[in-house]
């Protein structure tokens, strides 16, 4: 029987249609059909100037838009060889890590929903709201910020920002233990996710999967550590890797638990960054008046909560990018869905789709 888990479905994390061929409950083939949310991001970028592209990068992966900005801005600064003041680097790392925690909270919460647990979703969203309040404090917006510019940031940190983030961190760390109590080590949750959708490391690499999905399969690859950009080499944090505590290595539970551990790592980075952020320094100092990068091309990857977020920018000296390609991690994660959920039951397809943590805005661009 061909079943359409259609574009309008409670658990497809966006506008995605899965054509599922099933006999009885067992799924034999899945073809994801995407493109419902295609907003011609790359065509828009070719007709807008370099600073106008930033609000568009926000809207690709709308759950982690700080990291999208960060990726674009790091690529541009390397193309134009701009050196950004210390304070801006620290502000950017703080914002990116806060956004990573917020994005992981959303991923874990909606995954609880896919598996049927309502309450953890609301606990995690309550904590995510606190991070959004911090963002609203800094740049006024809660979800799509247009905060990081090429060469600096739009606003300096507000008065009392560091204390607010410290309060949040003290509030947040015990909460992670609460999520573990109610969801991670819940036997029904383990039953639903252990040994389901096992992703082997070689399959993951050849499918270009990256980020928590790849680390869940045991491959220790994190761009913040292996190809350090900005000032990530100053912070010591370790890269959590799936060990198969419950089921085999690389199953849904591992991907879930890697995200939980990654949130704790992000709090470690935040504490170190907050400790030695330089107090003074004008954030607008390195902002170029007119962004006209020299002719040439660059491909730069950064670590977004979903994986390797790559920007391939080709500039021909004019204020508008000649060609801008965004390599989206969720795009590759979705391509592996068919490979790992063949032969499982219908409710497992939903569980595997949730564990891959895809965002359709980024897949369709």
């Amino acid at each position, binding site marked *: 029987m061909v079943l359409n888990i259609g574009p309008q479905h409670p658990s497809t994390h966006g506008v995605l249609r899965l054509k599922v061929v099933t006999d009885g409950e067992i799924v034999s083939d899945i073809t994801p059909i*995407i*493109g419902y949310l*295609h907003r*011609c991001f*790359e*065509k828009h970028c*070719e007709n807008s100037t370099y600073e106008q592209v930033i609000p568009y990068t926000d809207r690709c992966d709308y759950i982690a838009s700080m990291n999208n900005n960060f990726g674009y801005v790091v690529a541009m600064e*390397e193309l134009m*060889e701009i050196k950004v003041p210390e304070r801006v680097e620290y502000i950017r790392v703080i914002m990116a890590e806060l956004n990573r925690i917020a994005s992981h909270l959303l991923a874990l919460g909606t995954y609880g929903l896919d598996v049927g647990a309502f309450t953890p979703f609301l606990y995690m969203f309550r904590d995510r709201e606190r991070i959004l309040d911090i963002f609203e404090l800094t740049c006024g917006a809660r979800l799509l910020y247009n905060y990081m510019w090429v060469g600096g940031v739009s606003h300096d940190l507000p008065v009392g920002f560091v204390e607010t983030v410290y309060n949040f961190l003290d509030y947040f760390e015990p909460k992670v233990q609460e999520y573990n109590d109610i969801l991670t080590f819940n036997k029904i949750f383990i039953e639903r996710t252990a040994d389901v959708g096992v992703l082997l490391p070689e*399959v993951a*690499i*050849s*499918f*270009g999967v990256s980020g928590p999905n790849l680390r869940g399969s045991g*491959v220790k*690859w994190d761009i913040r550590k*292996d*190809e350090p950009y900005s000032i990530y080499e100053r912070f010591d944090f370790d890269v959590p890797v799936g060990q198969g505590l419950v089921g085999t290595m690389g199953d849904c539970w591992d991907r879930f638990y890697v995200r939980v551990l990654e949130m704790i790592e992000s709090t470690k980075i935040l504490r170190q960054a907050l400790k030695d952020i330089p107090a003074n320094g004008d954030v607008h100092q390195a902002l170029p008046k007119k962004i006209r990068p020299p002719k*040439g*091309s*660059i*491909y*730069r*990857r950064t670590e977004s909560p979903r994986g*390797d977020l*790559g920007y*391939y920018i*080709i500039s021909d000296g004019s204020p508008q990018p000649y*060609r801008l*390609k965004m*390599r989206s991690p969720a*795009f*590759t994660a979705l*391509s592996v869905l068919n*490979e790992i959920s063949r032969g499982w039951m219908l409710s497992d397809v939903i569980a595997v789709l949730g564990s891959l943590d895809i965002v359709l805005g980024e897949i*369709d*661009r």
Partner: protein
Amino acid sequence: MTDNQEQLIQEAVEKALQGDMDAVNNIEDRVTRSKAKAALVKAKREAAKTSAEPSSEDKSEESATESKPAPLSLNQKIAGIIASQFPGTVDEESSSETHIQLQPAKWFDVAQYLRDDPACLFDSLQCVTGVDLGEESELEVRYNLHSMTHRHAVEIRIECARNNPKVPSVETVWHIGDWFERETYDMFGIEFEGHRDLRRILLPDDWEGWPLRKDYEVQETYHGIVVPKVKEGWE
């Protein structure tokens, strides 16, 4: 413009170059002051260009490989390996330090070789970018390869004609190639031979034209719906 104004600007610009800006600022007439400033900026830019020239060559190695001690040699090494294995595929003159230019002909075997050769071990295809090099010039596909074990990356570019662009598909070498190539086909119309089911991935299947080409015009209506939505009372 009177000559004393000109010579006033001249000496104001020299003084400003040595550092004291007030010579330019206290010219009371607005017009000459703005001209002086413009002249000053032009002078500064020439100065900057001459100084920047010598430093730009050595910094432009492949950005993602600064972890390798000898950045320049990686591309040469890989290009050398390819040239030795598949003579005649690498055209030297157009591959610069950051990328390797290849002929589309034997690209599939080169890709296979790049993945399996112990020296390269490029096991992950990071990104496939289609590029339209200009109104009437060719199209180009750029592959960014990365090796998880050696932790090094390289960029390979393949040009193909504009009228019927053909590039061999590497979908069987790296599985993600399947979707990347479908997207490049969807946006540029580059045929990837040997691809399992080459059809549009993002746009609806019966969409005419290749959107990201430079000479692309949006079709008027799609199934009767006017494509460029114009709001009334706005223009």
